[in-house]
Structure formats: C-alpha cells, structure tokens
C-alpha cells in the first residue's frame, strides 16, 4: 500500500475498498461491520433507545492522553451515557485530506478499535471520503451512537439543597490541547481526561432513582454546563472553589496561558445532580477507574433572583460564573 491517502482512495472503487479493508475493518473488526452492505442490521430488546451524533475536528490530532479517534469514540459513548443509556453500536464517518499519512490514519483507526473493545461497543457502519488538499485540515471524524436506556434513569426536577458532584479533575482535556498547541512543555502529569463513562454509569445504576441529572462538561467546560443546568432548574448554584478538583499542572498551565480552567473542556468527566444524601453515591463513583478525585462541588439554592451560578472563592469572596462567551480555544474536540 502507498504511504499517503490519495483522491482515488475516496472514489468508491478499488482503492477505497483497499483503504477500508486494510485500515478500518482491520481495527474495527466485527462481524456486523464486515458482513454489512449499505447498512448494518441488528436486533434490539424492547425498551427505550438513545441516539446521538457528534463531529470531531480537534487540533492537534494526537495529544497527551488521547487522539481524535479515541475522542470520537468516547465523545459519542459519553453522550449516550449521560442519557443513562448503555451504548451498543457506533457509526464512523471520516473525511480525509488528500496527502494524509496512511500510518497516522492507521494509528487513529487502531486507537478507535482499542477504545471500542475496552468499552464493549462496536463500530458497525462507516463512510470514507477524501477531499482535495487544502480543503480541510487533515482529518475530521463523525460518530453516531445508539444505546439502550437502562434502569430507572430519567431527568428529574432539581430541588433546593440538591448536590452537584463532578467525577474528577476539571479542564484536563482543554489544558492538554492548549499545552500541545502552544508547545508548553509540562513536567508532571498533564493528560487529557478523555475516557468513556459508560462503565461509571453502569456502576451507579442502582442509584439511578436518586440521580436527578447527568451532564458531561465538554465544550464551554464546567461553568457553561452548570449555567445550562441552573437555567433548566430555575435555581441558583452555589459552588465552592476549594472543593473543585483540579490538578496542579492544569492550574499552572492555565495561569501561564491566561485561560480559565472552569471554561475548559473535560472529555471524561460527568456532572451529577443528586439529593442531599449523596455520600454513598460519591463513594461508589470514587471506586471507578479515573474517578478517584470525584467531589461534591456545590449545591442548589433558591436565591430568589434569576437562576445563576456563583462561586464562593477560597478566601470567602463571591463572584458570578457566567457561560463561556467568545471563543477561548477553537477546535478543542
């Protein structure tokens, strides 16, 4: 095979087939995909299905702790997980720029395959397009996912006093991308938090009747996600700055770059809204791999005015946390 992707790899003929077989089939390997024609056919149990789609244009394609492939699989799985669904199948559409290195494409496909295997999800249909050099920047991926809604989970009305849990350190994905983009060499542990959350949701399934809301704070970060929740619940959110888990490395890089961690994306974290008796749920979450730093970061208050998020700073001051306005770091996922 050649070293780079050519326009003929996208013409639907022999070379397209070669690319699909030698790269995508090889790493996504599953019968539904390999045996499918124009569409994959599968059976489902009765119940509610969840369906979602997301496109990934992250730059750089490979970053500390992940790559666009892992992100594309985890991102869609996590969207399903926040709906309380067990992810079953994914689709994968790739748009490749002419001249893209085949070895890099294979590395990304391999990473997607590996992430799927780890999470027990299969990519069962896909599409490949190649476009002229200069019309896109390298590689874009779209994944859609379908899952079965599990147990008792459905969003419930949020009340005054309800607690907010974050399942781990914030801003790690956004900071890893920023440090890579601005070539800041960091000593210590600075990696994207990119990971699938379906195992976490399975683990806390027994508490679903007490979980009122789940949301993954991706673009716009914790601040934007919490503002959406405040708006939805018509309640205020009182955050405690000193309780928000954040790695030292993340804090330092953001200080250096003048970025606000609270607005930077997470790709492997979940915000949960639970009732006041949430210690057992928190303990359960902390048992999950990658969620050791989970913490209760605030609660809902009825401040009588419009719903807003405010933070009690670590010296006791107060400030309002608005939604993200204006781009901070483009092409983060």
């Amino acid at each position, binding site marked *: 095979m050649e070293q780079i992707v050519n326009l003929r790899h996208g013409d639907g003929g022999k070379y397209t087939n070669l690319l699909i077989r030698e790269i995508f089939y090889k790493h996504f390997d599953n019968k539904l995909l390999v045996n499918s024609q124009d569409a994959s056919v599968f059976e489902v149990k009765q119940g509610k299905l969840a369906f979602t789609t997301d496109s990934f244009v992250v730059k750089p394609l490979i970053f500390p702790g992940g790559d666009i492939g892992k992100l594309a699989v985890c991102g869609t799985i996590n969207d399903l997980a926040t709906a309380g669904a067990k992810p079953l199948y994914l689709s994968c559409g790739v748009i490749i720029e002419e001249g893209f290195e085949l070895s890099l494409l294979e590395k990304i496909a391999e990473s997607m395959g590996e992430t799927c295997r780890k999470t027990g999800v299969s990519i069962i249909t896909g599409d490949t397009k190649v476009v002229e050099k200069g019309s896109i920047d390298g590689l874009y991926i779209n994944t859609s996912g379908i899952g079965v809604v599990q147990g008792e989970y459905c969003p419930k009305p949020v009340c005054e006093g309800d607690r907010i849990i974050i399942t781990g350190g914030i801003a790690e994905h956004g900071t890893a991308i920023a440090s890579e983009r601005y070539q800041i060499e960091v000593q210590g542990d600075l990696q994207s938090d990119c990971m699938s959350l379906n195992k976490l949701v399975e683990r806390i399934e027994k508490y679903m009747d007490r979980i009122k809301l789940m949301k993954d704070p991706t673009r716009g970060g914790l601040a934007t996600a919490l503002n959406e929740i405040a708006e939805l619940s018509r309640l205020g959110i009182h955050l405690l700055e000193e309780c928000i888990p954040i790695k030292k490395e993340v804090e330092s890089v953001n200080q250096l770059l003048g970025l606000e961690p609270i607005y930077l994306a997470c790709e492997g974290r979940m915000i949960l809204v639970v009732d006041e008796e949430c210690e057992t749920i928190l303990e359960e979450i902390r048992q999950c791999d990658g969620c050791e730093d989970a913490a209760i970061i605030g609660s809902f208050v009825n401040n009588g005015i419009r719903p*807003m998020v405010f*933070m009690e*700073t670590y010296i006791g*001051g*107060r400030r309002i946390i608005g939604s993200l306005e*204006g781009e901070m770091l483009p092409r983060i996922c």
Partner: protein
Amino acid sequence: MDKGLARYLINEINLMATEEIKIMEVCGTHTQMISKLGLRSLLAPKIKLLSGPGCPVCVTDERYIDRAIEMIKKYDVTIATFGDMIRVGGMEGSLLEAKGKGRDVRIIYSPLDLIKMAEENRDRNIVFLGIGFETTAPVIALTIKTAAERGIENLFCLTAIKLMPPILDYILKQPSHNVGGLICPGHVATIKGSDYFRFIGVDYCIPAAVCGFEASDILIGIHYLVKQIRQNKKAAFKNLYRRYVRSQGNPIANQLIEDVFKVSCGVWRGIGRVENSTLDLNEKYARFDAKQVFAVEEKSIKSTSCECKDILLGNRTPKECKLFAQLCNPVKPYGPCMISSEGACAIAYRYREEI
C-alpha cells in the same frame, strides 16, 4: 492562602475604612486577581478598587491596528501577534477579520518563536506587533538582537511598548484624580526595580506599594495602603514583593532594553499623546522597524461613545459606563477595555461580583 489570614486582613482593612478610600491598581493581572477572588464582595463598600491603564491591549491606539492591516494590504506581510490583539478593532476592522479574509495573521506566545518563524518562512516578510509594558520589552529586545545576530532579514517589529511612569504622571497630574493609594505593578517592578515607583510618594504624596499577585500579596498591599492613608503617611512607599523585586530591578533585562530601544512620545488609546511614554527601536536597530520599512498612510480617529478613557484613568468604574454589559460585551465589544482578557471591563464582566 490561609483562610484565617485572609479573614484577619480583610477584617483589619474593613475596620480602618471609616471614610471612602480609593486604591488604584495598574496591572491587568492585579485587576484580574481582585475580581477572581471576589475581593470587592469582602471589602467594606467604602474601599473602592479602581483599575488603571494596565492592560497593554486596551491602551494600544486604534491607528496602530489600522497600520498593521494596511501593511498586510499594501505589502502582503505576515502579521505575528499575541492572541489578545487579534480581536481589537481599529477603524478598519480587526486582524481577526483580516485573517478571516485569508490574510496571513499568526498568533504567537513568545516573541522568541519569531526567530524560528522567520527562518522557516524566508520568502515572507513577518511583522511582529510588539506591544506591552516594561515587562515584555526585554524579551522583544532579545528577539530583535537575536535576529540581528543571525542575519535574519525578513523579521520586523511594529512597536507600541508603553512605559508606566509617564502615564502615572498623567493620571496623578489631573486635579480631579481619584487615587488615594496605588498598587504598583509587580511584573514591571521585577524588571525595572521598586525604586522606579518611588516618585509616586515623593512627587504626588500618594502612598504606594509594589505588590505580587497572590491573594495574600494583594490583601497585604491593600492593608498597607489603607493603613498609610489612615495614618496620613502620604509619602509612604514599600516593596511588598521582595521575593522577586529588587530595588534596582533586573540589570540584564534593563541592559537589553537600553541596547535596543529609545524613549519617545507615545499615543494611548482614548487618552492621546503622552510625552516619553513609549519605547521605539533605536537607530542601531532601525532596519527592524516596520514603521519605516513598510510605510503606510495614517488615518484620523473617529470618536466613539465608549467611556474607556475615563475607565483607564480611574475616573469611572466599568459598571458606570452606559454601554457596559448592554451594548458592549465580550462577544461584541465596543471599547478596548472589553476586548482584551486583561481589560478592566472584560474582567468586570467575566467575574461579575454582585449577586
């Protein structure tokens, strides 16, 4: 910072605040920390914290941006700039808009990256927008010197480096100025030394202190200033950032500034001309001066209804501007104070403290 210490200092400051006390800070990082900590919500209402002209982007004249855009149009140069500058509008639009139209505008983090950029793009003329205060001047000087040593011929600098003392003179000479005490910029003092700011007490009888940027630094600074004001020690001055700031500053950095720049008259956005307030490349390095190499016509300024001037001078707070958070917000900024992440209005908007 230790919560107990913070509470103690805040309590002490508030106990002393029996009359209105206005304290100005002139560094964007101080402005940001004060808001980020929610300090105003902790201090007695009689303590007013004002933000002076400490954000380099905010004080950069509109015509500077227009000049850069003209250079792209007329000479097809590559513009390299710090990120914040890209959204600032001149009269002819912003660099971001120029980039959207396919012009070559690149964001850099360190001026030293320019050397690599110039060497890798020998067929392009690169114009760096060298803005900032005394703090960024040494690294810009080092970049120019390095370019000269390496015989780089395609790198140029459009300088608008501002100096602190002349603008402080300008503010403090206004009979109506509001400043009761001054938090001096710790970063500038790291380069220039704490003695650089002694004139505030001597010439204007206003207590001043060089402060760092942690919560404790700022609180200790405010505590010190309020105490001097209350005790009527008007010429008091103290370096409270001794872990970085020496009385004479950083000699290597100052030598670099001296080697490469000369002091000249500067234009401040919304304020106008201030004598001896800017650094330009000196004769030895004139060949790097983009103003001379890529001459463009200068346009005249249209007036806006924005009150950035009064905000920069500490006569008004962002919230007192009628455009604030209504017509002027970070997505659609009117004035420069809303554009840069270090601008007083952008910070006041981002960290709104009233609940």
